[in-house]
Structure formats: structure tokens, C-alpha cells
């Protein structure tokens, strides 16, 4: 068989794909849209690693820490920068105050010039927020004039809220944790993000789980309009083409659709890329320029998709003999056999088995085995499902007319039904496994913050030297604040700090009510000093608790030239029992009431305000943040939560949610398309049934059953395979196996929801097709 002959036949098929009038066009278009959506998702997937790397690169490039030795002296090339991060609602706002100290001061990425004091440069998203109705409260907090926009280089996502404002006299604050002097931005040693094996495993599985249904979907898409195509092929046989030619022509048709699909896919991807910029999911947004598929992977997609289309078509035609007078499906297809269908999932388990119990300590998982194993298990679903559907449907008795119509139809063509739901079954099985894996390892990646959110819900850290009483009063007067507990904190050594003290202890200053948050004591009045007992990691307090003992307060500034602040312990020293403070730690050292505090000590301690907030007041937290900013822009308000996850984990989970949603929508669309095609082929029959008085409800119900039965079976099988795969994966990560039933239910529910939506959407066309017009022969 010459290559030219092949080319000629394929070419003829491609012409058929687009010729053939309106019907032909619609079919080619459907195939192309299906393949196109798949290609777009594939391209997105290939672009994702690059996008994450680019985000990481930009994040590193704008880091403003002093790495290694601090820059101590003001110079021509130094900049003082203060962190003024805040939050608005549940979104984070990255804020910086900058003050250049010389002409060569480093400019932050994305800025063309430094904003003058009182001006600010904002990200596009922040500008939009500030201009909007909802941004009024934030506007109050940022009393700067907007003079420019931060360029893309200075942002990690299109929806990031960020600003750089010009500061004044920031140099005085250097040494406070909030302000630093730097001579360059960025990490001098850019890091590769170090990922742990379990995370890599998760990412790998997420990708496979998302791509498998897409593959199944593409396979289904190239078979759109199969019956009509078969008739056309038969006509070709009649005019003299041989079996091989017919097959190649059929493959050519699929190829035509797939090639158009590639074009569509590129279009969808580019459109989606632009669209992606306007979305923010779980605090992650991207710039279109992030999403550049690697050329090699893109080329692979461009070759693999059309090739797959051809192979699938040839595979689908294997049991079909196209005769000149019609299509003969090899008699009644032999009863589906179970054994080889079971081989696939078994092979998957065999591939994964060697890694059972490996956990995170024993190095990387073998990526090929993981991918192969997961693919085998998921493909196993598509192999098992037709058998399950056939076996179960053959045993279904008949009930109502709608049930009978549906069951009989399924009995006659259970393969087609199974094919329709394969995609959803695979997606759900994969998602269930992933959910289990996530739920299982979630504990490992979620750290308990130890914060006691029942006692305080917000904390405001004010810079050293802030007048604490005034700050407390201001916050207490703020709308939505129930109670403020002000505690100043310092650190004491037994010698001046430049002489390296040997013993040290914490110092906490507050009124009696505030001190009761950290310790238990029988009595308290202003002027009292307490020595704490029972503090964690506290060894020195008892030995330092001698009346007359001189203690030296640690100084915030780094230059070491500040005068010593010395405090002599008073004669009467009361004892107090340390209790867990709102941050969840038991502190040690000394407690002072305001009356006992020497003036120089008061200036050098850092104030912490613990706030109890009435969340029933709308925007209570925003008022607090605004009040804090009014006290000092460098004051750092924090909202407490009981736990926090590592960000890396969040990103993966986000990816899964976004991907699973996209895949289900995609599959839903394909379900709808094939459903409609099926209905169109039965138009005449539907009209005849309506003519002799069949209720529309009966027909609608039968359409629902017809989808619901295979979907139900598919979801059941998906749950079994998904839970098994999840269990295997958990075993691999050495995590106790537990089935996360709510998420199993949620995933199957999502699958079922898709079916319901598809059925609902296909009802209006169904009703239209049931009109008697279908009886007209013209």
C-alpha cells in the first residue's frame, strides 16, 4: 500500500468531513469544538508548570529582605522599605512604604520612579477596587494620592492587590521588624521551589486525573455522527471502494475534524488565556503572558491529537463490516468478556504496589510507575463500564412505559450508553481518589496556629514607642470592637546587650485586666510587678527574681549605639502562675503594671493589642484595620484563625477544583451534543409516538432514565475504583487510610448534577422535536 494511496484516501475523507451540506458542516463543527475544548485544556495543562515557575520567579525578584548582612548605613544606593500589608475582606493587600535615600536607590520591579511622600503607585486591581463603591473603607486606610500603576513585572497575578507608597522619615524606624534598609531587590540566590515527594505525587495524579477524561472525551468527540457516516461509507463501497479504502476515508474524516479542532483549540486557549486574567480563584490569579505552553509539549499535542483521532476511528470500526448495501455490525457483538477488562485495573495496582508504604522519607516516587498505574486504573473504568452496563441492563425488568423504553434501548446499545458516561465516570473516579488523598495528607500540611480564637479574634502589633494607652483608647472606640487588651512586650538580659547577656527573661506590661490574659494571680493593683512561674522554655526567671537585680532591656535598633535602658527590680515582687495567653503559649519572665513602668522602658517596648471583635457588626474587621492604620501605618493588624495550611498545598487543591470543574463542564457539553444527535436521529419516531398519544412526560422521563441508568452505574463503579485508588495512594504516602465519604458524595453528586443539567437542557429541543412537524415528509 503506497503512501500516496494513503494520502489520497485520507484527503478524500477530510473533504467528506466538510462537504455534505449543512448536516456535514454541523457534524464537523461539533467534532471540532469537542476536540478544540480538549486541546485547549491540554495546552493549558502544558502551560501550567511554566506559569507556576513564572509566578515564583517574580515573587523572588521583588523580595525586599536583606539577605545575609543587613545594610546598616545610609548611602546613595539605599532604600528604606516598610511592610504595610493589610487585608480587605478575605483578600490580602500587599503594601510597602518606600523612601529612597539616594539617587541610585533600587527601584522596585514594575515601578518607573519612586512615589513622593504621600503618593502611591497601585496595581490595576487595587485601583479598580479603590475606585469602586465597595472600596471606600480601604480608601480611608490608604490616604495617599494615586500617581501611577505598578507594571506587570512587579506583580505576580493580574488580580493582585498591591501598592507602593512614598514614606517619610522611615530611616528612624529601621530596626523595627517593620522597616528595613536595602540596596537591592530580589533574592541574590534564586531558589528552585523545593517540593516534597508527596506533593509531586499529588501534582502528578492531578494532571493524570484531569487529562484522562479529556482523552476519553476526544475519543467520543470523533465518533459524533457515527451512524450517518456509516451509511455514507456504505455508499462508497457501492461505487467500488474496498474495505481498506473505506476505513482510511473514515479515518480521514476524523482527521479533518481533529485538525479543525486543533485550530479551534488554539483559539479557545488564546481566548481562555485572556479571560484567565480577569479571574481570581482562591487568591490565585495569573497574567496571560504566564500561560505559554512549552513549544515541545505544544508540538506533542499538535501531533498526538490528530493521531489519536485516527486511531480511535480505526479502533471503533474494527467490529464493523461496511458492505456496499449497508453496515453490518459483526452479528450481535459477542458478549462482553470480563477477564481482560479486569486486567487493566489489576495492572494499575501492580504498578503502584511496589511503592506502598514508601511515605515521604524515602525519596521521590517513580513518576512513570505512578502515572502508568493511575492511568491503568482509570482506563480500567472505561473498560469495565461497558461490561457493567451491559450486564446490569440485561437483568433489569420492565416497569413503567418510560422505564421500558429506556431499558430496551440500553439493552440494544449499551456500548453507546457506556461511552457517553465514560468521561464522567473517569473524572469522578479520579477526583474521589484525589479528594481522599488530600483529606488524608491534609493533616500533615495544616499547622495548628495555637491561637485561641475564643479570646481574641484580631491582634494589632504597634511599632515601638507608640503611646499604648492612646492606641487602646482609639481601638476601643472603634465600631465593632468589644474589648481591647493591650500588652507591651520587651526582653530583658542580665547585662548590657552589647556584652552578650547570659540569662534573659521576657517582660510583659499591661493593666491588671490585660495581665490576667497571660497569668493567674490572687491580687493585682497598679504598681505591682510579678515574677512568672511555669512559663515554657523559661529557665532564668527564678534566678533573676531578686529584689535589686538590674536588668537590661533589649534595644530594637541594630547599630548598638543606643543607651542602655536599665530596670532595677523593686523590693516587692509578687508571684504569678503563667497560663496560656491568646496566642497559645505560656510566657515566662516578668509582668509589670503601668504604674511600675519607668519612662525609658515604656519607650522601648513593642505594643501588642489583642482585640475581641463583634463579628455581627458589618465590616468590623475593616474598621479595626483602618483605626490601626490611623494610629501608625506600620501597625500590623492580623486576623486570627485556628489553623493555616501551607500555601503550596492550597495551590494544588485550587488546581484540582478548577480543573475538575472545567472537565465536568466539557463532558457535560459533549453529553448534550451526543444526546441531541441521538434525538435528532429519532425525530420521526418521536413524532409518531406523540401522534398516537404518548405523553411528553413519558418521553422526557425515558430520556432521563436512558442517561440516568448508565450514569448511576458509572458513578457507582467510579466510586469503587476511586476509593480503591485513593486507598492505594494513601498507603503509598504512608498515611492511615480513611474514606472521605462527604467528598465521595460530593463528587458523585457533581457527576449526577451534570447529568441532570444535561437532561434539562436537552428537554426543550426534545419537546420541539416531538412536534408533529416531524411527521411531514417534505
Amino acid at each position, binding site marked *: 500500500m503506497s503512501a500516496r494511496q494513503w494520502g489520497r484516501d485520507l484527503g478524500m475523507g477530510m473533504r467528506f468531513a466538510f462537504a455534505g451540506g449543512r448536516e456535514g458542516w454541523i457534524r464537523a463543527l461539533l467534532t471540532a469544538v469537542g476536540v478544540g475544548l480538549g486541546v485547549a485544556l491540554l495546552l493549558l495543562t502544558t502551560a501550567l508548570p511554566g506559569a507556576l515557575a513564572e509566578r515564583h520567579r517574580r515573587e523572588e525578584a521583588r523580595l525586599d529582605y536583606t539577605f545575609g548582612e543587613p545594610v546598616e548605613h545610609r548611602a546613595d544606593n539605599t532604600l528604606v522599605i516598610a511592610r504595610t500589608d493589610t487585608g480587605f475582606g478575605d483578600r490580602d493587600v500587599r503594601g510597602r512604604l518606600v523612601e529612597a535615600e539616594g539617587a541610585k536607590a533600587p527601584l522596585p520591579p514594575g515601578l518607573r520612579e519612586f512615589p513622593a511622600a504621600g503618593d502611591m503607585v497601585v496595581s490595576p486591581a487595587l485601583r479598580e477596587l479603590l475606585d469602586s463603591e465597595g472600596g471606600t473603607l480601604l480608601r480611608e486606610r490608604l490616604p495617599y494620592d494615586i500617581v501611577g500603576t505598578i507594571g506587570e513585572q512587579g506583580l505576580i497575578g493580574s488580580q493582585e492587590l498591591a501598592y507602593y507608597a512614598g514614606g517619610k522619615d522611615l530611616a528612624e524606624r529601621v530596626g523595627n521588624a517593620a522597616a528595613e534598609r536595602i540596596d537591592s531587590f530580589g533574592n541574590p540566590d534564586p531558589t528552585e521551589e523545593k517540593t516534597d515527594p508527596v506533593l509531586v505525587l499529588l501534582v502528578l495524579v492531578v494532571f493524570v486525573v484531569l487529562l484522562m477524561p479529556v482523552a476519553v472525551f476526544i475519543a467520543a468527540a470523533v465518533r459524533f455522527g457515527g451512524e450517518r457516516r456509516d451509511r455514507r461509507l456504505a455508499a462508497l463501497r457501492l461505487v467500488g471502494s474496498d474495505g481498506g479504502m473505506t476505513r482510511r476515508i473514515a479515518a480521514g474524516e476524523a482527521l479533518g475534524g481533529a485538525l479543525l479542532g486543533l485550530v479551534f483549540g488554539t483559539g479557545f486557549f488564546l481566548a481562555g488565556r485572556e479571560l484567565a486574567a480577569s479571574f481570581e480563584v482562591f487568591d490565585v490569579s495569573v497574567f496571560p503572558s504566564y500561560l505559554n505552553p512549552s513549544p515541545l509539549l505544544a508540538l506533542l499535542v499538535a501531533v498526538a491529537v490528530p493521531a489519536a483521532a485516527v486511531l480511535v476511528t480505526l479502533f471503533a470500526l474494527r467490529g464493523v463490516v461496511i458492505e456496499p448495501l449497508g453496515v453490518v455490525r459483526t452479528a450481535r457483538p459477542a458478549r462482553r468478556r470480563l477477564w481482560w477488562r479486569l486486567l487493566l485495573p489489576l495492572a494499575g495496582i501492580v504498578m503502584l504496589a511496589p511503592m506502598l508504604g514508601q511515605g515521604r522519607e524515602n525519596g521521590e516516587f517513580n513518576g512513570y510507575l505512578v502515572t502508568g498505574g493511575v492511568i491503568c486504573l482509570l482506563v480500567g473504568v472505561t473498560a469495565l463500564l461497558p461490561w457493567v452496563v451491559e450486564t446490569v441492563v440485561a437483568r433489569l425488568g420492565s416497569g413503567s412505559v418510560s422505564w421500558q423504553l429506556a431499558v430496551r434501548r440500553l439493552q440494544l446499545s449499551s456500548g453507546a450508553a457506556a461511552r457517553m458516561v465514560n468521561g464522567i465516570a473517569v473524572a469522578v473516579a479520579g477526583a474521589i481518589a484525589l479528594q481522599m488523598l488530600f483529606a488524608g495528607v491534609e493533616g500533615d500540611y495544616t499547622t495548628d496556629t495555637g491561637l485561641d480564637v475564643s479570646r481574641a479574634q484580631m491582634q494589632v502589633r504597634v511599632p515601638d514607642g507608640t503611646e499604648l494607652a492612646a492606641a487602646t483608647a482609639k481601638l476601643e472606640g472603634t465600631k465593632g470592637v468589644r474589648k481591647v487588651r493591650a500588652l507591651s512586650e520587651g526582653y530583658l538580659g542580665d547585662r548590657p546587650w552589647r556584652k552578650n547577656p547570659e540569662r534573659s527573661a521576657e517582660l510583659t506590661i499591661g493593666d491588671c485586666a490585660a495581665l490576667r490574659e497571660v497569668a493567674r494571680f490572687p491580687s493585682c493593683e497598679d504598681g505591682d510587678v510579678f515574677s512568672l512561674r511555669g512559663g515554657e522554655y523559661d529557665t532564668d526567671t527564678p534566678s533573676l527574681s531578686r529584689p535589686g537585680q538590674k536588668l537590661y532591656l533589649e534595644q530594637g535598633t541594630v547599630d548598638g549605639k543606643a543607651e542602655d535602658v536599665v530596670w532595677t527590680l523593686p523590693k516587692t515582687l509578687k508571684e504569678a502562675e503563667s497560663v496560656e495567653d491568646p496566642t497559645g503559649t505560656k510566657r515566662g519572665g516578668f509582668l509589670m503594671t503601668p504604674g511600675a513602668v519607668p519612662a525609658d522602658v515604656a519607650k522601648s517596648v513593642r505594643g501588642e493589642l489583642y482585640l475581641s471583635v463583634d463579628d455581627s457588626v458589618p465590616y468590623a474587621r475593616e474598621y479595626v484595620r483602618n483605626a490601626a492604620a490611623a494610629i501608625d501605618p506600620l501597625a500590623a493588624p492580623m486576623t486570627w484563625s485556628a489553623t493555616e495550611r501551607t500555601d503550596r498545598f492550597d495551590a494544588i487543591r485550587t488546581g484540582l477544583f478548577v480543573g475538575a470543574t472545567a472537565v465536568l463542564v466539557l463532558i457535560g457539553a459533549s453529553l448534550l451534543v451526543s444526546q441531541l444527535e441521538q434525538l435528532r436521529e429519532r425525530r420521526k419516531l418521536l413524532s*409518531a409516538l406523540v401522534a398516537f398519544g404518548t405523553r411528553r412526560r413519558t418521553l422526557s422521563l425515558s430520556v432521563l432514565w436512558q442517561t440516568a441508568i448508565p450514569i448511576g452505574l458509572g458513578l457507582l463503579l467510579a466510586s469503587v475504583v476511586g476509593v480503591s485508588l485513593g486507598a492505594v495512594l494513601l498507603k503509598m504516602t504512608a498515611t492511615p487510610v480513611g474514606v472521605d465519604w462527604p467528598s465521595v458524595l460530593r463528587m458523585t453528586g457533581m457527576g449526577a448534577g451534570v447529568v441532570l443539567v444535561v437532561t434539562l437542557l436537552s428537554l426543550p429541543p426534545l419537546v420541539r422535536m416531538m412536534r408533529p412537524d416531524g*411527521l411531514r415528509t417534505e
Partner: protein
Amino acid sequence: MTAPVPPGSLLTARDLRKVYGPTTALDGAGFSIHPGEVVAVMGPSGSGKSTLLHCLAGIVTPDSGSITYDGREVTAMSDAERSALRRSEFGFVFQFGQLVPELTCVENVALPLRLNGTPRKEAERAASTWMERLEVDDVRKKRPGEVSGGQGQRVAVARALVTNPRVIFADEPTGALDSLNGERVMELLTEAARSANAAVVLVTHEARVAAYSDREIVVRDGRSRDMERVV
């Protein structure tokens, strides 16, 4: 041609008008049939004879005009009422595309009874009886795709008769059959209908099929002509 309802008429239509987009399918057509009567509706293709049948059967609503069935005005009925009427009082035979390919023949015949709520066993028993009368009881367990055209059409006739309808609407019932099979189907259909005192509205363009009728009306350009009254 507006005329009063003829005495004893089961189904009467007067002055029907129906427009599909730019085409006028019916333009003042009338019709009347008595119980037990077989009336052929003839006319060239595109003349509106199928549309007339669809209107008479309550499948489509005419744009204007009236249809009286057994003293009731069909055009005034809701869709559900007309569906119920078709289920219980009417039977249908079409040229093709009417048997549900997934159901066995006996299930197909039983379908109208099942739609009316008859239990499956009982419905299939009645269906079997009718299939015997139409000489197709040997294909009861087969699917429509596995039987010949003549057998399939007889199955369709059995289905039309199974509810003991008062009017049977047959639209080119022999259109896809050879003469021998076509005649057999017509013989069985008209005999069964006459013995049940059911009326048959028979749309056909074939004279030999129309010869099984008692009289014919001709539809031309959307207007009907009752030949009995003219001659």
C-alpha cells in the same frame, strides 16, 4: 364550503386553514366520516392531505376552522386532552418510522394500552390476540429490525387497533410495501375496522389502496372535494 354537521357523522371538519411558513397547506378544507366508514383522502403530493389528517387527528391545530369529534370541538381542547383522545379513541398507521426499534413487536403493539395504564401482562395478552388476527403472531418476540416490511406494517396495524379505537388514521400505510403485501395489509385493516365499527381515514395516492374505501375525498391546493356529494 361550510356545511352543518351531517347527521350521524363521527368526525367532521369545516373550513380548515393551516399555513406553514410561506406554504398554505390547507385553505378551507372540509371532511366528514361516519362510524364504520372507510374514507380515502386522495390528491397529488403536496396538496395538503397529510396536513388534513394531522388536523383531524388533533396532532396539529388548524389556524382556523372547526373539527367536531363525537359532539366535542377538537380545536378547543388542550394539548393534554387531545393526547388523551389520541391515546384512547384513535389509532394510527404511518408509512414508516413508527415502531420503536428497541422494543419487541409485541411490546410495540402493547404500547398504546400501556400508555393508557393497562398492566404489562394484560396489555401484551391483548396485543397477542390482535397480532394473531393480523397473522403476525410468529414475530411477537422479534424486534422491528428483524421482520419484513409487510410484517412490520401489520404489526403497526395491530398496534393501531389494539385500543379498540373509533377512528383509525392511516397515512400511506402501504407506501413502502409491494402490491401483494400492501393489499393484504389493506384487507386486514379494513376488515378489522369494519367488524369493530371503527372509521378509517385513509390517506393514499394509490387507487388500488383507495379502492378499499367506501368513498373518497380529493384534496387539491389545500381545498377538499367530497366526490360522493358532487357526483
